[in-house]
């Protein structure tokens, strides 16, 4: 009898949050779907916007750039984060302090990091003078079509790896010490301990980091918008930048919405795969 009374009370507590979910997530997602299905000046739904973007060389280029970027940046960041986690997982003096330093760039707004790196990338900036110490001539970084994507990868990795490192350190600390003791008694060397204990035991946090990092990298916007605007010659035109450009530079909400739907669908698929992988692991 008090069940429905509880329901009414719960609804009062939940109402603002439910409203915010509907207004801030579901409505925009549905609006994007609606706009993506309405071709310019059309009154009936069609897939014209999707046909258009998937034949538009500019959008196709941004898909290609995003894939190229993802294939490089995700394995790179995970390898670096894992290396950092192994390096920082110890009882040496000030360990917490060193970890915090690697984590600092995550806390800073991405736009700030992008602005600072933009100055470092200048011809007379910090990076070229650093290279000069090693006798390497000045590079063009974000103004060169060959180096711009690499420069973006450098910046987002400097920003992000500390975060993934922190999660992997937590994973490393969950590994039972007895596993290492057992394999050491069996005469295993450092590489074998890593290969047969650390890696398999780290599967769950590594999967999580892989998926979360992939999603985060699909959504990179501020560094591209500030450092390169997608250029030079479209070489850094990641998909978020392309959606922004269609919507606000080209004034084409149909194409922007179709791009948004493709992105949201892609992200949701990746997240669901993550839940699937984590779920499988949980059952064992």
């Amino acid at each position: 009898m008090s069940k429905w009374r509880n329901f009414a009370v719960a609804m009062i507590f939940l109402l603002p949050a439910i409203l915010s979910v509907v207004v801030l997530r579901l409505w925009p997602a549905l609006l994007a779907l609606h706009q993506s299905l309405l071709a310019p000046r059309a009154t009936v739904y069609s897939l014209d916007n999707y046909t258009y973007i998937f034949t538009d060389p500019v959008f196709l280029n941004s898909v290609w750039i995003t894939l190229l970027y993802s294939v490089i940046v995700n394995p790179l960041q995970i390898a670096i984060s894992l290396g950092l986690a192994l390096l920082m997982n110890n009882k040496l003096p000030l360990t917490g302090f060193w970890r915090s330093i690697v984590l600092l760039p995550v806390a800073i707004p991405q736009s700030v990091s992008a602005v600072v790196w933009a100055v470092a990338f200048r011809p007379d900036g910090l990076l070229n003078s650093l290279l000069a110490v090693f006798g390497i001539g000045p590079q063009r970084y974000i103004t060169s079509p060959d180096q711009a994507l690499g420069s973006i990868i450098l910046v987002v990795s400097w920003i992000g790896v500390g975060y993934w490192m922190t999660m992997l350190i937590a994973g490393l600390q969950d590994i039972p010490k007895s596993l290492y003791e057992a394999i050491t008694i069996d005469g295993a060397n450092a590489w074998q301990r890593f290969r047969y204990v650390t890696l398999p035991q780290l599967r769950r946090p590594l999967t999580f980091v892989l998926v979360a990092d992939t999603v985060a990298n699909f959504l990179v916007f501020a560094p591209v918008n500030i450092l390169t605007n997608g250029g030079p010659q479209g070489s850094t035109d990641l998909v978020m930048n392309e959606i922004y450009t269609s919507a606000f530079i080209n004034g084409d909400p149909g194409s922007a919405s179709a791009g948004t739907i493709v992105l949201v669908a892609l992200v949701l698929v990746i997240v669901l795969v993550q839940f699937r992988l984590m779920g499988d692991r949980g059952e064992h």
Partner: protein
Amino acid sequence: MERITPRSVLHMAVIIAVALVFVLPLYWLTISSLRPEDDIFRYLNPFGPWTFIPNRVTFDNIIGLWTGAFARAIFNSLFVAIVTVIVGLAVCAPAAFALAAIEFPGRSLIFTAMIVSFLIPFDAIAVPLFYIMRGFSLQNTYAGLILPGVGNGLTVFLLRQFFMGIPKELREAAMIDGMGWFQIFWRIYLPLSVPALISAGLIMFIFQWQAYLWPLLIAPSNDMKVAPVALAQFSTEYHVSFGIIFAGAMFLSLIPMAILVGFQQYFTGSVAATGSKE
């Protein structure tokens, strides 16, 4: 502490070298903000002692930050982030309470639906949300800047987890004493959850402090610009000096860095604090 061996010395050296790589841009930004404009690029090439030690120190850039066009943007950022924390907790904490403490039909369904909806990353739907908010004339308003920050799935999830750890017996006893759900929430759950409320508040603060895409869309006017957007735009304008850019970047970094450092201390402190009753 471990014994000092050649191995641990080498390990330490690698750690310090790595930390230097991460801290170098931040250090450079800090010293550049304290240098006269002429000195910022002067000592970069070739490297020398003055590359990393400012030989002339000035506070002009920091003063300029607070007297120029940037001051307004900093105020906007602070105001938006603080109001987001207050309103966000008022939205998320009651929801988390209902999902953790009240037993009602459809509870797990609503919880799942809410978490799944929040899995759609905010930035991905920023463009369609902009069209909606433009329809309500929320362009260049504080409401437009603040609203997206108040509904936060992570906050709801975090608070729910914490509330679920509060023993059921407490609320049953309170009910026998004649308390209603609102009193239980306000007088029992909230006072017991201060550490979780602070972490939730910090998550929302940092979300807003870092926001770039959304403020760029919804609040482009000079009066309503937030600091990260203003910084990015000033950095491409020739009338704004590098000193001011660096001072702005330093200020924007300082607050989250302080939170990050203070955060860890807070948690160790909170363990001790729960033992003493006020």
